[in-house]
């Protein structure tokens, strides 16, 4: 594979500064999976519709399958592997497990990225809002019941704690 144009890329992946060389058309999902060996990000449709590949780029849920890696120059990318110290994600992980918000698990990392965005950005979100915000992430197994319940449970717990602290 010679003669292909390449571009230098410097970004932060899961808190680690990374310098790499990528082809201009390498998408972020492939960069993460093939070069960074972060295979927790799953590829479902490769056209930005199913949401399985959702990661956080500068804190914003992003379809990594239609995001060029080179467009993430200087960005901070977080994948499902990076949240072990993250309290919000810990709560979501526990809630997803307890509420059976997963079956085959293929959509789960993307769901969690979106879910974390919902609970941090929309602390007052009700069920209707959760459904609206989550509607860009497809799950073929669960019928979404456990997913909505898991996110609602974390939101409610956070609201309760804030009340207590206030």
């Amino acid at each position: 594979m010679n003669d292909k144009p390449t571009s230098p890329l410097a970004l932060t992946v899961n808190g680690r500064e990374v310098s790499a060389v990528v082809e201009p058309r390498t998408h972020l999902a492939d960069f993460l999976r093939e070069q960074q060996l972060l295979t927790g990000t799953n590829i479902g449709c490769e056209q930005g519709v199913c949401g399985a590949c959702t990661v956080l780029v500068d804190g914003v849920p992003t379809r990594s399958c239609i995001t060029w890696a080179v467009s993430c120059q200087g960005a901070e990318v977080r994948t499902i592997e990076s949240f072990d110290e993250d309290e919000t994600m810990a709560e979501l992980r526990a809630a997803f497990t307890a509420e059976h918000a997963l079956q085959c698990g293929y959509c789960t990392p993307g769901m969690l990225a979106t879910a974390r965005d919902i609970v941090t950005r929309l602390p007052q979100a009700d069920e209707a809002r959760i459904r609206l915000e989550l509607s860009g992430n497809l799950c073929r197994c669960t019928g979404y019941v456990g997913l909505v319940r898991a996110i609602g449970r974390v939101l409610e717990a956070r609201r309760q704690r804030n009340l207590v602290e206030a």
Partner: protein
Amino acid sequence: MQPSEAVDLAIPADRAAVPAVQGAVGSGLAHESAVLHVTGGAAYIDDQPELRGTLHAAIGLASAAHARIRRIDLAAVRAAPGVVAVLDAASVPGLNDFGPVVHDDPIFASDEVQFHGQALFAVLAEDMRAARHAARLAEVDYEALPALLDVDQALAAGSRVLPDAQLRRGEPEAALAAAPHRLAGSVRHGGQDHFYLETHIAYAIPQEDGTTRVHSSSQHPGEVQLQVAHALGVDAKDVVVECRRMGGGFGGKESQPGQIAAIAAIGARLTGRPVKLRLDRDDDMVLTGKRHDFRIDWEAGFDDDGRLLAVRFMQATRAGYSADLTGAIADRAMFHADNAYYLEHVDILSHRCKTHTVSNTAFRGFGGPQGLFGIEEVIDAVARHLDLDPLAVRKRNYYGLGERDLTPYGQKVEDNVIAELTAELEADCDYAARRAALRAWNAASPVIKRGIALTPVKFGISFTATHLNQAGALLHVYTDGTVLLNHGGTEMGQGLFTKVAQVVAEELQIDVSHIRVTASDTSKVPNASATAASSGADLNGKAAQQAARKIKARLTEFAAARYGVREDQVVFRANRVHIGNAGNGNGTATGKPGAPLSLSFAELAKQAWMGRISLSATGYYRTPKIAYDRETLSGRPFYYYAYGVACSEVAIDTLTGESRVLRTDILHDVGRSLNPAIDLGQVEGGFIQGMGWLTSEELCWSADGRLTTHAPSTYKIPAVSDVPEIFNVRLWERGFNAEDSIFRSKAVGEPPFMLALSVWHAIKDAVAAAADYRVTPQLNAPATPEEILRSLTEARQRDVEPPAGATA
């Protein structure tokens, strides 16, 4: 969406006094991979570390529906950057076929193309992008041949993949002629793409002495093993197929993975390098089979109360270009043409039409939903014709208890609980009052119309091919008391591995955390059936139970001999083994003959090993009682039936054709649940998937036979926003399998799918409301906005101008 009620089923009396082990049968244990899934640690095939020299494959697809290939020029493909090799029909060392039943599925088409998107060749390249890019560069010269694209064309041409089949009972013609009322109709439903989130994938690794290991995302590794062996021209012993988990299957990975695995394996053998083939979503949707779409023509005779006196069905299904599993699917559609209703005089004619489209395959329900679709259409039409509540007509036609209980194929319905379920849900969801209120509401609402329907499901459990109803398991106990479990089933997210581990935990009375369930592997459990027909836990749970019981019996015998007690004085309970009259289990291991003592399971395992007792066992199970004659379509194909009922209320916008499900109530019988949380997930997920089939999931083909809905941008599976606003799902507390199934549970994978027919009939009810319930809507599935608008227009026209010659 209201939270579903988590049901904690009562522990059976014989186990009630036993201190539970963690993950015991009946507990709502989380999915065995849940922690891996939420941390990104679950390895799908594409996530496994790639071996040195791995090549990536992509498939070159045909761009004609039916054509003779005059010439195919692959020079540009071969010359493309990164390309290492190109495979086509001539590259196949063995048999160029992956047909699971009939050998009519070429891995690569050579002379004749039989559908738009058929595989012509595969490219092996240094990376996936290079392979996919090169696969587009072939120049193919086609000589177009006449193409049959749908059921109507195939029926007219007499085109079939398999012979027609017919199932008759009684005197349907005479009973029809004598019936006080007669109706006839024709209705269609579409196919359905599985849309598993993980597309088809295989990773083939060449190994020493001509052997090959294939990682295949497959519900049927044993079949893939044979398909690969045939393609390579080697023996089954030379191929090992492994699958730890799939990112969804739904039937789409039953027969279809064979082609993907064979291509990877051929590439691996020819190049000596590992080959990975992961389909792009669009290629996956174009190349691999889907649910069978049906046209169902029917004729029914009935009395003034809506009781069916005679029914005739013509079921015509589009098989696509090859047989694949169509025979068994069309058979099951015939076996489910009755749903929960007694059909005394009945005639079911089944056409398995050959078309120049992708070969349709297994999909959750496997013909069952198609069969139910037909009879529910009949019931609804009868009720509307007589101006009766469709639910009343349904109940009137239910199979009886001890009478009116023989199915058209001669199996007696002995475990019928449909009337009980219906009564319970009808009361719970306040059906009658809501139906009355809804009619009043509609009268005052000119644009938005609401509809409601309560529909039953009865679904036969067992593979109709009797020989497939067997399973094996392999269980090792190590000297630290931990267990490694393997069985012939596969994990596609449905929780099979969790349930089978629970069965072993229960049998050995050890915490489930001490049990590891390992990847399905043809070298561990041979000749396993597909994980299909909802039978995974029924079959593999029993096989694993038998293996556990063998080990337990050996440990018991050993302990009794060593400690000088009777075997019935050796009791396994909550991670410990109580020997002698240990009573409270606090005794210590004195080693003195006859003294009561208690050992940990691990201590006993270690002692047994020291005593040279085998701690490894196989388990085997075959479903009893079933026997069925494929020639006459009669006998007992099913071990038992699963039942459920659902009530849905919808609203449609008569100006745009849009529909929404406002509320759904479900009561489903899973017997005595192995894991209520997992079962609830199956019911919820199956229902929503069925809703997709009947509402938003529309497969479209262009006039030249090209699938135009080949990605989620154009093919709409349900999103969370489509889930009923109120969604009450309950497992039936009194559920109990009348047959001796694994801990009296019932299969749950497929039956809930058909509960979505309640949504379908609620939509029809809403369409009927738009013409003041004076005409029976003609609606085909899926009920897209376009189809609802078409149906509304047609219904209103008929309402204004009744057809000439309309009968009573």
